[in-house]
């Protein structure tokens, strides 16, 4: 097999392609986590109408394919941004920004559910005991419930980020140059698909395998702590 298409395009594949994949993953995992905490807080402690609204949003987004979500937000973003900045006309949004918005909002749903489950897994007695000691509601959450919830859910949150790392490949439908997109471009230019797709699969396999193993060892260390 001829590997020169890979070796002569390493910087394009890794810096342009994989770089974009990693940037989107890191940004959206962080933004999604922040938003997810907010959504989980609303679902757990918010007023009833807000709980219903968030539950509807989360369940809706989790029930339809990610590709459909990507299309929805790609075409909705111009109107959303126009609404936020009160512009009378839809604002043009490029595929990269739209991908950042989409994956952040999409991941927020999954993080919301993980965090909610984590908070619910902390024994109620902890909360009552903290309240009995005279802590305020925010203090109970910040110093008693959330640290325990985070320890329970930390590994799952990272695993979700690894799933996101794989899901970012779907920006293919927006013709963005992520890792898969970069490989596809080279493959089509050189009319040589086989080595490039095998290479992409191998890189994902190694990256995801090593990171999942890392999370597993973290998981067992947290369990014994």
């Amino acid at each position: 097999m001829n590997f020169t298409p890979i070796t002569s395009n390493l910087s394009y594949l890794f810096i342009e392609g994989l770089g974009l994949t990693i940037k989107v993953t890191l940004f959206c995992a962080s933004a999604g986590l922040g938003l997810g905490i907010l959504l989980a807080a609303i679902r757990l402690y918010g007023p009833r109408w807000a709980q219903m609204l968030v539950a509807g949003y989360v369940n809706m987004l989790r029930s339809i394919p990610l590709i459909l979500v990507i299309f929805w937000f790609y075409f909705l973003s111009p109107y959303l941004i126009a609404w936020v900045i009160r512009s009378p006309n839809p604002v043009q949004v490029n595929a990269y920004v739209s991908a950042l918005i989409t994956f952040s909002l999409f991941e927020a749903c999954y993080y919301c559910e993980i965090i909610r489950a984590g908070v619910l897994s902390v024994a109620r007695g902890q909360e009552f005991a903290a309240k009995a000691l005279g802590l305020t509601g925010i203090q109970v959450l910040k110093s008693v419930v959330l640290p325990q919830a985070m320890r329970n859910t930390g590994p799952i949150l990272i695993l979700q980020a690894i799933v996101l790392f794989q899901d970012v490949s779907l920006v293919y439908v927006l013709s963005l140059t992520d890792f898969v997109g970069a490989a596809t471009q080279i493959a089509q230019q050189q009319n040589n698909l086989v080595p490039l797709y095998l290479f992409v699969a191998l890189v994902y396999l190694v990256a995801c395998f090593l990171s999942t193993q890392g999370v597993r060892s973290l998981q067992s260390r947290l369990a014994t702590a």
Partner: protein
Amino acid sequence: MNYQWNWRVFYDISGDGTSTYAHNLFAGAGWTLATALLSTLIALLVGVSIGLLRASPHRLKRGLAWAYVEIFRDIPLLVQMFIWYFVVPELLPASLGNGIKSLASGPFLTVSIALGLYAAARVGEQTRSAITALPKGQLMAGIALGLSRGQVLRLIVMPQALRLLIPPLTSEMVNIVKNTSVGMTLGLMELTARAREMQEATFHTFEAFAAATVGYLLINLCIITTIRAVDARLLSVKERAPRPQVGLGLLA
């Protein structure tokens, strides 16, 4: 907002000159369902076998099943589909590879196989945890009664494990339905592809995607209610005892 809504656009004739957009969307939903059903069949057959191998006392069998799960779980579904569609036919003998490439139902079969084998890794893990969740005494008692290991699995372990598997398999099937949309990258004209096609031709973006969204919600609702009905029927025949409802978010 200056978006012109027009819900009558579904009755317009599409680019092919004969059928309406509504008709095309229904046809797309049909392909989504057909792909999901074939994938589920593959995922069940392969996944349950992988789960049994994962619980096997043989090191080699366990190792092979472990490798399968890791490989199919650590590569994005999109890349797996590209491999099955673009790479595998090239690696086969030329006559066979060309034969596969010229198949009219090529995308449908490739997407079903790729998605089925991908989901099988997850079904395998679910099967394994269902098997290990059963009390060990079940297996030991079976062996003490003089049954072979195969008989114990077939007559004692699997009937109980399959019952435990119903909730995770339901959400796995919902996942499969969602993931059929990745097939649009190989040219499978399923629901999302049909909505995208309509959007490109009419610029009625939100009507098209709203229709697809409702389509997925309905398909998944049907799957969940069907499996629940079957599960309840199984219960009423075999146990006739009330059992706590297994918690399943509506469509999660």
